[in-house]
């Protein structure tokens, strides 16, 4: 049925025909998108999109390539705010000296996505917009309290990242809106963080479960002053584990406490997703991964 819609079938390399546009400026991109009336798709790296085109999942009339728009390609820090253009690749994020210093948890997560080839093309923008529950850049951005800047012919707006997600693979973005930038406050120099990821293979494997943690130990010896926790691949949309964060705050993170906290983490996940066939496996694994992430962050 889908095949009938693809005009050219040839050797499994079918990609339906379309117009490929490469705007040089953001307002041009917005205009093109607006005019396309839902029949255009934004393309950056294309590592997911091209597969969708091949499968016949997508059949846009035109593609709008945003990788030549300067402001979408920048990594900057200004007045304490770190900003990353939506068309910045995972490789660039992984190797950026600025982000290794002021967004280490994001850099580390980006370095584990896919393979070198995928990271050289794939962008943070799509990782967010695709809204896969298993996206690797999202839990780190959640603990960094990132904001998303969205632009369209109607204007621009900034929303907390978590508010973009409506469901698995669903954002609240309208067809004529473009995610252009992600920003977050420069973390304090004494912030420790960790990102741990569980997957079937060491590379080229989607995350089955991930944990992102950022914390600060306070002046009062050994007590956690601030802690942020976000899990990946276990909930349909990203969230912060605010109950567990409140539980851990102001306390000394010994093994006993971590164990109690890990149970709260798994309970929070199950409250969100309900009991599923995989729960008896995932429950102890979530708990163990959380403890592993906590230890890794604390040891920094």
């Amino acid at each position, binding site marked *: 049925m889908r095949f009938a819609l693809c005009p050219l079938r040839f050797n499994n390399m079918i990609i339906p025909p379309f117009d490929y546009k*490469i705007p040089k400026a953001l307002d041009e991109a917005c205009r093109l998108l607006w005019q396309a009336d839902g029949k255009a798709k934004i393309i950056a790296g*294309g590592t997911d999109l091209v*597969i969708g085109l091949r499968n016949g999942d997508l059949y846009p009339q035109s593609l709008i390539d945003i990788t030549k728009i300067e402001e979408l390609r920048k990594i900057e820090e200004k007045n304490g705010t770190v900003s990353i253009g939506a068309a910045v690749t995972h490789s660039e994020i992984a190797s950026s000296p600025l982000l290794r210093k002021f967004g280490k948890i994001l850099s580390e997560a980006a370095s584990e996505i896919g393979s070198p080839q995928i990271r*050289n093309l794939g962008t943070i923008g799509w990782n967010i917009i695709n809204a896969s529950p298993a996206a690797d850049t999202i839990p780190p951005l959640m603990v960094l309290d990132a904001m998303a800047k969205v632009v369209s012919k109607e204007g621009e707006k900034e929303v907390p990242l978590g508010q973009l997600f409506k469901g698995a693979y669903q954002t609240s973005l309208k067809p004529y809106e473009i995610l252009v930038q992600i920003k977050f406050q420069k973390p304090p120099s004494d912030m420790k963080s960790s990102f741990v990821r569980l997957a079937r293979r060491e590379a*080229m494997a989607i995350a089955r479960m991930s944990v992102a943690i950022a914390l600060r130990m306070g002046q009062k010896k050994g007590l956690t002053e601030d802690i942020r926790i976000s899990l990946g691949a276990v909930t349909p949309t990203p969230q912060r584990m605010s109950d567990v964060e409140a539980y851990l705050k102001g306390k000394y993170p010994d093994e006993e406490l971590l164990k109690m906290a890990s149970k709260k983490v798994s309970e929070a996940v199950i409250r969100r997703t309900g009991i599923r066939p995989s729960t008896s496996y995932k429950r102890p694994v979530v708990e163990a991964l959380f403890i592993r992430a906590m230890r890794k962050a604390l040891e920094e």
Partner: protein
Amino acid sequence: MKEVTIKFTLNGRRAKVDVPSHWTLLRLLREKLGLTGTKEGCGIGECGACTVLLDGMPVNACLVLVPKIEGREVETIEGLGSRESLHPLQKSFIDHGAVQCGFCTPGILMSSRALLENNPHPSREEVKEAISGHLCRCTGYQQIIEAIEAVGRKA
């Protein structure tokens, strides 16, 4: 269907092609330019057999649509060494038995070339990371890793 004219650099030489805008770089290389050294293993960017260098960076040619390469540098396996004068990597692969059926080899050679350009003396871990986007069904990777490391040691 729209044909576009793409100007780019191919293995050091200026190239100009007229090609449907929805073609992938892989299809352009193999079907229009006759450069069949780059292979299609999966077509979805998971096996690495189609790896070429775009501005010096390894990418999966099956995922790059041709308009993207406008004004950029593409290097394929055909640009690595020559029959008369093999690239050190090619020689090392032969010496270490890193080629069996050879299907994955062009892609891995391109990734290794990029690795050594940026990091002339990679550690074993760095070599493994550089080839982590490649599948080989024949060798078990050991000989491949040793072949790349050996070139790193000699340089």
